[in-house]
């Protein structure tokens, strides 16, 4: 029983990590209808940039002879992500207004490979241990009192994800810019007619998703070091989105948790019968099943087409 509980908890925590990446997808999809394939690379890039700012073996240290304190490094990285967002709008999106979603999707695939290559050239491809002073190791309190093994870092990640979701939900539902974002997603022309500037909105939404990517990059980086396989986590976010719904912020979280718990539990309890490695494919099978039953996801908007 205790073992099951531990498995579920570790699944929940892994799910939070998936959810953080999925959140970035949802933001861009909600506001512009683009599935941003580059979201995982965004997280990687943010992690690499942050490492460079605060470590003593990066570019920044070489150029200036000192490393930034962590908090300043985070702000500087956010600046980098805003510049990236602006460049994406200026160099890519601006020229693809009113194009088919598939064309925009293709452009984000190009963006993903470009950013990955750029990250490699700028920062090198070795695994970098990111230490920004988040608590590591098991929580003594839970271990002593309940005999449960829970990583402190994962608890922090859960709290951060919860705060992010609340802030984003309020931002989307209750503010002018949030409304403008949703308006742009719905109808470009109508949005223009009420004085919303598409360019500004796009820069904002890509910056916000850059911020979410930064958070995801920090969390993953602290957990297992910043490595290029991080960009592959983007693929795990896909079943998360299918489960939660592409347009729902809470859906990304719930979807992430279900996938996280599902694959851990399946691995531990069903794994021995099929020779293990269930974790690698469980999420996709679950998503496939979901597509048959509820294609819009748990929280997605049901699309009604009138004929």
């Amino acid at each position, binding site marked *: 029983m205790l073992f099951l509980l531990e498995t579920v908890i570790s699944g929940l925590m892994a799910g939070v990590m998936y959810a953080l990446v999925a959140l970035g997808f949802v933001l861009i999809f909600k506001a512009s209808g683009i599935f941003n394939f580059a979201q995982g690379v965004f997280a990687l890039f943010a992690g690499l940039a942050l490492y460079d700012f605060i470590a003593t073996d990066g570019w920044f240290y070489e150029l200036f002879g000192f490393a930034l304190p962590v908090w300043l490094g985070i702000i500087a990285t956010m600046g980098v992500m805003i510049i990236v967002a602006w460049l994406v709008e200026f160099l890519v999106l601006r020229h693809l207004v009113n194009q088919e979603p598939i064309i925009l999707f293709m452009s984000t695939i190009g963006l993903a490979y470009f950013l990955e290559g750029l990250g490699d050239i700028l920062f090198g491809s070795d695994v970098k241990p990111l230490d920004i002073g988040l608590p590591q190791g098991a929580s003594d309190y839970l271990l002593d009192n309940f005999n449960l093994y829970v990583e402190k870092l994962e608890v922090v990640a859960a709290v951060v994800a919860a705060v992010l979701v609340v802030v984003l939900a309020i931002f989307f539902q209750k503010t002018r810019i949030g409304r403008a974002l949703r308006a742009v997603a719905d109808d470009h022309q109508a949005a223009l007619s009420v004085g919303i*500037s598409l360019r500004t909105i796009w820069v904002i939404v890509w910056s916000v998703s850059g911020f979410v990517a930064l958070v995801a990059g920090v969390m993953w980086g602290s957990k297992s070091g910043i490595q290029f396989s991080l960009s592959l986590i983007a693929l795990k976010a896909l079943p998360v989105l299918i489960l939660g719904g592409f347009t729902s912020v809470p859906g990304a979280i719930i979807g992430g948790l279900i996938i996280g718990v599902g694959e851990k539990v399946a691995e531990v309890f069903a794994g021995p019968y099929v020779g293990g490695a269930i974790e690698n494919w469980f999420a996709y099978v679950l998503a496939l099943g979901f597509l048959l039953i509820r294609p819009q996801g748990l929280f997605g908007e049901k699309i009604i087409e009138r004929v």
Partner: protein
Amino acid sequence: MAYERNIGDTILSVDQISLSFGGVKALSNISFAVREHEVFAIIGPNGAGKSSMLNCINGFYHPQEGTITFKGNTRRQVRPSEAARQGIARTFQNIALFNGMSTLDNIMTGRNTKMNKGIFWQALRFGPAEKEEMEHRAVVERVIDFLEIEAIRKTAVGTLPYGLQKRVELGRALAAEPDLLLLDEPMAGMNLEEKQDMCRFILDVNDEFGTTIVLIEHDMGVVMDISDRVVVLDYGKKLAEGTPDEVRTNQDVIDAYLGVSHDDEEA
């Protein structure tokens, strides 16, 4: 007109506008002037260039030649968001609402140009942004009262019947408190009762808020009833301009509408 209004000076003047798409001339050499507080109609057969004209005025299309002067600012090319900030609001021939959002939120987007608290406060919805949100909400509630759509305040607009969607779209335009309201076929596809309601709203807007209105409409009865002046387009050219009575008796206009060549057989 039955009620008294002060028709003022020219608020919008369109001078020698020409617009073409590739080899197709959508508009050639169109000029007219709209005066403050009047209801001005643009009519003409299908494909006459009426919607293109509205799109030029609010910046969706950029005419190759000619200028548009609004409130004393002369410009040829303007961005739609810029036009909105100058006080031009519009509705669309095919309803363009934000389907996923409620009626209230749709109309709130109309306040976009009037809200300017920074993104930092916005993100937290705190301090000045909270207060601002409340003020604008009050304006929006007045618009909702005015258009008698209180009951559907929280309904997602995608699920509303057509006539109500048109009304919500008008509400969104009104929420911007525009100086110039462009209506592209506000009554298309409506039944008689809905048309009467819409006419009443248009006249009330004009009367109570003094908003200048430029509208495109196919229902001649409606146009002749509610417009102060009318301009007639055909194949991108201006056929006539004047009061409804003048236009009604203009032979060119009659021909364009009835599609007959002007012979002497009736004389």
